[in-house]
């Protein structure tokens, strides 16, 4: 055709924005059909009245929130002495520094678009506004301020969102800048927001006044925030020059937990003359002897006798520990040799455990030895492990310089964390071993592992905690006293190991058979196959499940309150309502405890999701 039809005069370059605006949004998301409209209205009413009741309950002047704010420290660390509190801050500081450095080393900094920020502002602001409007009662000052701040934030967000539509290239903001802003805001809150604090008088009466949040802690927290910022910047500065920064950080994280325990709970009294007269000789003698043996049997041309020697060695060492420890004690009238504390047991074993460790190293020597350099490296690892072992014995057996009033252990949220971390760290090797045992071709080993895993998993944790708190004492009273927290950790470790084993087994099963065959075909030993091929793949595959388990273990620590450990829940539920000033505050404190748990668990699960996504990207 000669004359075509022209539909548009000029070609639009910029696309039309999709229909938007509040009305459109409601039409699409709340009222897209008759039934959805009805649902929205009904649910909306329920939410409206529910929220209103909830807010009313929270703001009710009869609520004893001051019981929580006044006892904030009790909830965090139970009875930690005032003059030693700097230790707690140092511990927090260690974590903060490591967190800052890690954030830099793993390059968590990302970009977020202005649109997303605007959207966030809009929803936070309107949320605050809605809450302020929903609150029953008149327009009192606090509510008006709260509501108007919300309105302003929402307004900024909305304007920003509208504004960005005109620009083609969406601007981005660094998440680090946002995080910095958040830190500044937290700092400002620390110095300005007032919360109820109670003063208790001699006759038992009390007065509640609003005071600055955490009068005594605002300065330390501000310092911590600064430390966080500084350590991040330091991390950014050094991450390119130190190539193994990530590996070093992983090691530091691993060491930080025992280090913090030592700092906070023990302040170990290291007797240097003992270290020089005992530890050093033990280290030199055993280290050198075993080193020589490892050098000899790690040689590539050593025969099978190397296994036999190591096996006999291991059996002898284990028997020696068992028999000298319990049974063949000529001086004891009963077969049970009593030692009064774990520290004493540690002292008694300081010489014997290195021998067991040495035997284990000797058993693995043929797998990891080899050329001269490899053998020397292996001996280096052995010496490092020996140092750690002897150090932990020395530090564990040393008496504490720290005098703690109240119970001898940190309680509250710190205990919750201690339990969770200790249990997950300790259960990890056990769980991996159990998983390998269950996947093993050896029927007796498989049977024992399977029985253990199934039995432990079928019985609830609380019964294991009872077993820990009652039976463990019964089993071992007269041999070694186990501190109640350690008993709980033992029970949780044994419990969590079974679940961990099942997770790891899932990972093991996900490894294709070809991987085993390939490893076999190049002549790897069982140990090599497991350590070099199987476990790295299996563990990587189960990281999400493991993180999930950490989260549930964190929640499960609350069960120790039933066996009377002073964790967060126990303090909230028993100790604080047991103060004569705070009788009747149990519901408030339970809510506070729930909120604390929620904050941590929610943060964990969100970050684990992010981790999963990152890992998913990183595999290929």
């Amino acid at each position, binding site marked *: 055709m000669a004359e075509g039809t022209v539909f548009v005069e000029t070609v639009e370059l910029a696309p039309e924005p999709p229909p938007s605006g509040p009305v459109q949004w409601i039409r699409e998301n709340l009222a897209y059909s008759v039934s959805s409209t009805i649902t929205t209205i009904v649910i909306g009413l329920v939410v409206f009245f529910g929220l209103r009741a909830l807010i009313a309950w929270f703001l009710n002047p009869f609520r004893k929130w001051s019981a929580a704010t006044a006892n904030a420290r009790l909830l965090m660390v139970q009875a930690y002495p005032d003059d030693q509190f700097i230790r707690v801050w140092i511990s927090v500081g260690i974590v903060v520094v490591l967190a800052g450095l890690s954030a830099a080393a793993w390059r968590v900094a990302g970009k977020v678009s202005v649109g997303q920020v605007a959207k966030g502002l809009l929803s936070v602001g309107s949320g605050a506004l809605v809450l302020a409007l929903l609150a029953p009662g008149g327009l009192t000052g606090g509510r008006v301020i709260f509501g108007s701040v919300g309105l302003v934030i929402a307004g900024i967000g909305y304007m920003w969102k509208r504004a960005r539509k005109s620009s083609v290239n969406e601007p981005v903001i660094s998440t680090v800048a946002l995080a910095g802003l958040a830190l500044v805001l937290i700092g400002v809150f620390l110095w300005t927001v007032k919360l109820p604090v109670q003063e208790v008088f001699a006759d038992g009466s009390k007065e509640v006044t609003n005071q600055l949040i955490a009068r005594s802690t605002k300065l330390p927290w501000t310092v911590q925030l600064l430390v966080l910022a500084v350590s991040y910047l330091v991390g950014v500065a050094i991450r390119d020059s130190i190539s193994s920064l990530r590996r070093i950080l992983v090691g530091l994280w691993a060491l930080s937990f025992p280090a913090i325990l030592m700092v906070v709970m023990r302040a170990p009294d290291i007797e240097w003359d003992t270290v020089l007269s005992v530890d050093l000789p033990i280290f030199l003698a055993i280290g050198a002897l075993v080193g020589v043996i490892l050098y000899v049997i790690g040689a590539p041309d050593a025969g099978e006798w190397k296994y036999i020697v190591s096996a006999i060695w291991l059996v002898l060492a284990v028997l020696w520990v068992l028999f000298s420890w319990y049974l063949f004690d000529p001086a004891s009238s009963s077969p049970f040799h009593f030692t009064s504390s774990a520290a004493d047991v540690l002292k008694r074993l300081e010489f014997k455990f290195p021998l067991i460790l040495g035997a284990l190293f000797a058993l693995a020597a043929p797998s990891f030895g080899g050329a001269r350099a490899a053998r020397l490296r292996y001996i280096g690892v052995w010496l490092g492990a020996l140092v750690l072992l002897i150090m932990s014995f020395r530090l564990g057996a040393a008496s504490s310089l720290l005098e703690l009033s109240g119970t001898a252990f940190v309680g509250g949220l710190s205990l919750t964390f201690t339990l969770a971390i200790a249990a997950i760290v300790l259960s990890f090797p056990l769980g991996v071993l159990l998983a390998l045992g269950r996947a093993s071709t050896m029927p007796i080993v498989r049977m024992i592992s399977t029985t253990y895993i199934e039995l432990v998993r079928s019985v609830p944790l609380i019964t294991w905690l009872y077993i820990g708190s009652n039976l463990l004492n019964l089993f071992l009273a007269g041999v070694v006293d186990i501190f109640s927290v350690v008993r709980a950790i033992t029970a949780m470790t044994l419990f969590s190991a079974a679940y961990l084993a099942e997770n790891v087994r899932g990972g093991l099963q996900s490894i294709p058979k070809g991987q085993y065959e390939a490893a076999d*075909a190049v002549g790897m030993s069982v140990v090599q196959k497991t350590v070099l091929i199987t476990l790295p793949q299996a563990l990587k595959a189960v990281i999400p499940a493991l993180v999930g388990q950490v989260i549930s273990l964190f929640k499960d620590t609350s069960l120790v309150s039933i066996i009377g450990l002073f964790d967060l829940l126990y303090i909230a539920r028993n100790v604080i309502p047991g103060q004569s000033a705070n009788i009747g505050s149990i519901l408030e404190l339970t809510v506070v405890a729930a909120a604390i748990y929620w904050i941590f668990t929610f943060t964990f699960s969100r970050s684990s999701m992010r981790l999963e996504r990152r890992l998913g990207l990183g595999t290929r």
Partner: protein
Amino acid sequence: MTDQAIIDCRGVKKWFGDFQALRGVDLEVTKGEVVVIIGPSGSGKSTFIRCINRLEVHQEGQIFVDGIELTNDVRNIEAIRKDVGMVFQSFNLFPHLTIMQNITLAPIWVKKQSKSEAEAYGRELLERVGIPEQADKYPGQLSGGQQQRVAIARALAMKPQIMLFDEPTSALDPEMVKEVLDAMKELAKEGMTMIVVTHEMGFAREVADRVLFFDYGQLVEAGTPEHFFTNPQHDRTKLFLSQIL
């Protein structure tokens, strides 16, 4: 080179449950020989070569590799696996290790070579299979043909006397088959003793010293490629060849 058999199988039998996979296989392979095994799927060819490095355990009969009998003896198994390299149908590269790590893993940990020594040889091998530039990548970043060539390099890194190939090209796209076969031909030229399970008749014709035909767990027919492809004796062989050629 002597006529001494480097692989000597006598009456090898193997069952999976009540399914008999091998029904008494007798075979001798001399040093430097390239043996190609063909046969319909399920005929036991893979099982057979997997018995040679004891990935499968034969139940009756005897297998000698380089004069060592395959038994439950730990020492013998160790020794034989160092001597026998294997390339799998599905590559079986270790996905969590780089190409170089894949190749040097066994020399370092099993042969106890030093790392620098192993890496030097590893680079040489990569050169030989034609992918020197991929050393620091991960298996997942390579094409199938490249992966299989890495697998060959990995097997060669142990300096084996014998190489086993279990259908090395059947998981590959057609255009990648050639690069793998070229690498194998190169190897054969260098005088490596090879046992190859494959459906690549061209390869068999060109490279093999001997072609074996397996069916129902038995060695049905053996012969030189010319004899085999031009004048097969057994009816089963004829039928099979007529179907695939």
